[in-house]
């Protein structure tokens, strides 16, 4: 992989991630309006964000949308899970960039930068998998 290709791949993946995610977000929102809600919640409930400085009052947020529900939710045209998927595609876009960089550094046998990208990836997955379990977030 030449330097030329490397930058082009990164650029394409970044753009693809954004486009796919925005399409999913827009689809999710459209579905919520067309199906008059999602997941048993009304549009009213989905759109409300509570009031005050804390989360007071009723609102639906990410903690009630588990990752494991995404596949099933998308199959059943559940708007909330379309949005969830879109947001996770967005979160995974920079992660995939680090993965591609890691592959490039490994190919170039740049040991130091292989180690550095592995550390960054470790941090990213630590935040995603370990922190929620151990810190009872």
């Amino acid at each position, binding site marked *: 992989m030449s330097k030329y290709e*490397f*930058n*082009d791949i990164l*650029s394409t993946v*970044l*753009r693809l*991630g*954004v486009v796919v*995610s*925005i399409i999913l*977000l*827009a689809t*999710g*929102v459209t579905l919520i*309006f067309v199906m008059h809600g999602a997941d048993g919640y009304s*549009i*009213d409930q*989905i*759109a409300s*964000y509570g*009031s*005050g*400085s*804390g*989360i*007071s009052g009723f*609102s*639906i*947020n*990410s*903690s*009630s*949308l588990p990752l494991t529900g995404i596949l099933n939710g998308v199959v059943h045209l559940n708007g*909330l899970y379309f*949005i969830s998927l*879109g*947001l996770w595609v*967005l*979160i*995974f*876009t*920079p*992660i995939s*960039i*680090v993965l591609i*960089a890691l592959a490039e550094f490994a190919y170039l046998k740049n040991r*130091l*930068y292989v180690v*550095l*990208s592995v*550390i*960054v990836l470790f*941090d*990213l997955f*630590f*935040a995603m998998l370990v*922190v*929620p379990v151990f*810190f009872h*977030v």
Partner: protein
Amino acid sequence: MTPLIALFNFLLIVVGGFSAGLLGSLTGLGGGTVLVPLLTIFYGIPIIYATGASLISTIATSAGSASAYVKERISNVKIGIGLEVATTVGAIIGSLLAVYVYDHRLQWIIYVLFGAVLLFSLYPTAQKGRHEIPPLKKPDWTTRLFQMTGVYYDARLKKDVHYNGVKWWAGEIVMLFAGIISGLLGIGSGAMKVLGMDWAMNLPMKVTTTTSNFMVGITAATGSSIYWYAGYIQVFVAAATAIGVLAGSFIGTKILVRMSNKNIRWLFFAVLSFLGVEMLLKGLASNGSFVTSGTDRLAISALTSVILISCLFLVIRKQEAEDVQV
């Protein structure tokens, strides 16, 4: 709320996101930094959801604009990834701090810190472009070890610009703090990243801004997953802002290239300082240490921002005049 009103609300948040993205890219401060005050002050959205939506939108804009800079080979991917070691650790610390703060209902801290960070970001952001290309420094041991020698083609100067990054460790320290701020306040903290690479590592402005742009997404992704599990992301709001901010910053970048009168920027800086003071006062008011009514706050913020920006304008004008003499 009827579906029609919900739709109207959605579009209203998209418009808010669009303005934040536009203002964020025109000033170089980033959409998230404008979005959080906008959503909390004018939309009454709880700060938890405002920061959650901001962090998500930050990834979208970072990826969108970084895509172009990476392709043009101005961003230094290697330096970016190396510095992410510190920003991702910082983002984890910062997000956990945010969880602690919200669990203990200490929201006022977020308001005050946000206001302070916004106001302190103004000076370096306004100064941007003063020293476009720093004097080439002698490489130090970190330049060689971390392979921080680079080159990019400057379209305006019509030549290749060579550079050596120095003091990698100093950059890492600044990045750790940038990461903490990003996780705590739900912003990309791009201004702080630029500062680190500019002041500590002696990289040219074009390289620092575009590399920071690329890094912001990785930092925000780290914080976002913690925010997700903590329940700080209201998906309806986040979807609206992601779409709005992305569109706004896209248009902002296009306008920026064509904007011939750079003085217009000062109007935007005034808006930002207004938002900064407003956040600061709102935090102090909810803490009970400086209670003001809504209208008082607006008046004080407006007055303070006019004074602040006038001073900043004069200081930077003076610097520019000195630069010309040298």
